[in-house]
């Protein structure tokens, strides 16, 4: 190692992680082996390296043995690299003289053959010892954090996060795809287990959002482009034309009343198609913002150009503007909270439940609208012919806990099925049957609610419903929907004739979750929900710094959990903003002028346009502020002029050599 200016003095630490590593890997043997590797001055094994004494041990050894490079062989660097870098700093060493070896996630937890595992651990430690010798002193760059925040999705999670951030004095941009905020919660009549009126608790929050001086609410809008990095995101938001000038409209309904369609003709999205709306409409009376929308796909003016525009004439504030175009807003924010919510399972995917075939098979969301006083049936639970059902069967887990559709539990369908059972019984006095696999009521007051239902003479049948049919075998069954189920308590197949079937549909990732994921550069779990950084310790963080997630976009959850998570995401964003700056990993690329031949092949490689060409010097120049440290240009430079901090060629080559070549 003659080219090193200083003498390299390496300390190697092998962590037992209790039994987690030591149970499979011969930690003392590895430590002994490492002590004989080149430049290693001291090598130790210790029960928990991440504990305080473990970290102090590193500091003491740095002082005592004049160590200038440290190898910690423990868990994944994604988990504890920061911990050990801090330990180096405390010991007076530059934090980038650390190299971690992942012998837990990558060795002890995945391998059973101890000989093979030990061999691998030895190779990995040897590689790190080789690599760390070449590591350089680096400093993290501090960049200021823009205090403004973008929140995407205006359901209860987005609303809660927005209000928390705004109350803390931060400027919030709340972007909602639909014409109004409120999300799924706005569809509900009551909420479990307290049977609070959903509108009564939600609409004050919605109007607070609208009134809050720190919140800019853009409904009927979508994020179309995102660039930048933590603390400094640049975002483009496309505002779809609603053909009504938001600032002028007061939501008086005059335009709706005067539309040439005298009656509603098109499926009303808010009532899930159970009622009709006109091309000009307000989603519901408490919509926020309370501004009309013209749907250009159904409006006669847009379809034929031959409408007398009675809506525009009826508006005495001249708020209607048929010439509105999509408008792109460009904003800069430091943090982002994604609260884009879920999609209800499409019950048509299970043809044996007859949804879409039998008119009296409904989804739970449709029934939610029916029991709502402002819903399509004005609060009456009725069959398609308008009559009251005398018997109702509620099928739990439709599209949940099922190998063929979705394996996960929707976490809400037990509780909302109980709620609907209670409401249906209250509204109609019908016999109500709940068909469940397991009752899952783990929440404050939830089990008590279940108990209450048991006393309300609601029937509970444990078994997954096999089919809903109109096939009558006895006269009692004539004209009914027959639910066939194996009652696993009794141990027999039962046929239960009912008037109405309610399918308690599960929660799925939204169709556009993948688009949003790509826009914000985050990951999804295999089922398609947004992936958190750590399932336990970082549940609202993502792998992209400054982007947080909350609500059912991250996984199925109910209102209290969504609100709690929104609070957590807001707190994480606030912590980042209030620290004033972020430290960026110093892994940027740089150019060695003397080697650059000016071939320009790097210019088009960089996805961030961070490389420019200096025409005078005839050399490429990297703008460090724009470089994100992917290293693609480094690998593509034919003259080896581009290098990358933290991932220098000689660091990687020595790691490769160290892996395969015994050096004792």
């Amino acid at each position, binding site marked *: 190692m003659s080219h090193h200016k200083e003498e390299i003095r390496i300390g190697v630490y092998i962590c037992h992680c209790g039994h987690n590593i030591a149970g499979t890997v011969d930690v003392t043997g590895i430590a002994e082996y490492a002590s004989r590797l080149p430049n290693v001055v001291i090598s130790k094994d210790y029960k928990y390296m991440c504990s305080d004494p473990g970290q102090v041990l590193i500091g003491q050894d740095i002082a005592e043995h004049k160590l200038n490079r440290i190898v910690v062989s423990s868990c994944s660097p994604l988990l504890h690299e920061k911990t050990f870098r801090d330990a180096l700093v405390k010991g007076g060493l530059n934090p980038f003289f650390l190299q971690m070896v992942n012998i837990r*996630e990558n060795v002890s*937890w995945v391998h059973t053959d101890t000989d093979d595992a030990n061999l691998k651990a030895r190779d990995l430690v040897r590689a790190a010892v080789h690599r760390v010798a070449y590591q350089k002193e680096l400093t993290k760059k501090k960049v200021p954090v823009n205090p403004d925040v973008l929140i995407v999705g205006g359901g209860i999670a987005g609303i809660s996060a927005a209000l928390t951030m705004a109350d803390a004095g931060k400027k919030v941009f709340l972007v909602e795809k639909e014409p109004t905020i409120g999300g799924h919660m706005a569809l509900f009549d009551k909420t479990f287990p307290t049977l609070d009126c959903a509108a009564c608790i939600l609409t004050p929050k919605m109007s607070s959002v609208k009134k809050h001086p720190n919140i800019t609410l853009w409904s009927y809008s979508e994020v179309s482009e995102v660039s930048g990095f933590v603390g400094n995101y640049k975002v483009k938001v496309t505002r779809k034309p609603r053909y009504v000038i938001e600032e002028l409209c007061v939501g008086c309904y005059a335009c709706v009343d005067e539309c040439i369609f005298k009656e509603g003709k098109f499926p009303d999205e808010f009532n899930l198609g159970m009622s009709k709306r006109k091309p000009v409409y307000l989603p519901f009376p408490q919509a926020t913002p309370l501004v009309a929308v013209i749907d250009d796909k159904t409006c006669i003016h847009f379809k034929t150009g031959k409408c007398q525009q009675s809506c525009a004439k009826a508006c005495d504030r001249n708020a209607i503007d048929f010439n509105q175009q999509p408008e792109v807003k460009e904003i800069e924010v430091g943090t982002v909270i994604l609260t884009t919510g879920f999609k209800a399972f499409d019950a048509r995917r299970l043809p044996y439940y007859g949804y879409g075939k039998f008119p009296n098979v409904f989804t739970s969301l449709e029934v939610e609208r029916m029991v709502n006083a402002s819903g399509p049936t004005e609060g009456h639970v009725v069959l398609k012919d308008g009559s009251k059902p005398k018997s109702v069967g509620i099928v739990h887990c439709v599209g949940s806990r099922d190998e063929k559709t979705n394996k996960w539990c929707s976490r809400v369908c037990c509780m909302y099925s109980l709620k609907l059972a209670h409401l249906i019984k209250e509204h109609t006095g019908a016999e109500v049957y709940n068909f469940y696999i397991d009752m899952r009521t783990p929440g404050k007051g939830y089990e008590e609610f279940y108990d209450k239902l048991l006393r309300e003479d609601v029937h509970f049948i444990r078994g997954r419903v096999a089919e809903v049919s109109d096939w009558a075998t006895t006269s009692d069954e004539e004209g009914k929907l027959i639910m066939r189920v194996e009652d696993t308590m009794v141990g027999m197949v039962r046929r239960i004739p009912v008037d109405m079937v309610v399918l308690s549909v599960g929660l799925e990732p939204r169709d556009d979750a993948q688009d949003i994921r790509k826009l914000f550069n985050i990951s999804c*779990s*295999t089922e398609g929900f947004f992936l958190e950084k750590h399932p336990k310790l970082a549940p609202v963080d993502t792998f992209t710094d400054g982007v947080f997630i909350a609500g059912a976009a991250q996984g199925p959850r109910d209102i209290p959990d969504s609100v709690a998570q929104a609070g957590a995401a807001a707190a994480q964003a606030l912590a980042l903003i209030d620290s004033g700056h972020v430290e960026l990993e110093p892994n940027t690329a740089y150019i060695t002028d003397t080697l650059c031949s000016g071939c320009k092949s790097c210019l088009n490689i960089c996805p961030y346009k961070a490389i420019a060409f200096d025409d005078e010097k005839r050399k490429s120049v990297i703008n460090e502020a724009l470089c994100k440290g*992917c*290293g*693609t240009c480094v690998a593509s430079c034919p003259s080896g002029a581009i290098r990358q901090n933290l991932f220098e060629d000689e660091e990687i080559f020595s*790691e*490769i*050599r160290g892996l395969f070549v015994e050096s004792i």
Partner: protein
Amino acid sequence: MSDNQINKQAIPANWKPRIAAFFCNWCTYTASDLAGVSRLKYPATIRVIRIMCSGRLDPQFVTDAFAEGADAVLIGGCHPGDCHYANGNYKCLRRVHLLKKVLKQMGLEEERLRLEWISASEGKRLAEVVSEMSEAILKLGPCKVKQVVEHYEK
């Protein structure tokens, strides 16, 4: 030693392959962590080198790994369209295509270089790929590039 002789040697008893694995920090490396957390099992054949993006993969990393004694090289990047840095994975794909041609001319079997798209949530996929690849390399036997290199260096 001719090209044909490179790999036509008996497989030593108890021999197990060693595979150099270059994993993108954001997807496959995270998947390897997930495989660990999920306690999935796969053969102890891979030796992971973490890079920030599969786009950082210098073709020389691969040739060097073979020269130093790797029996195979596995590269893990983000699925098409999912690159954390927009399109580094495509750059990697281009290089791997070329590398495969070069390695073939060197007399190496195609199975010895593999590029896989494995997302952060696909711990199971990672375990499957490593198992499959280990089995394939086990059948091929040790890679003799290192010996050839040493032979010529002498």
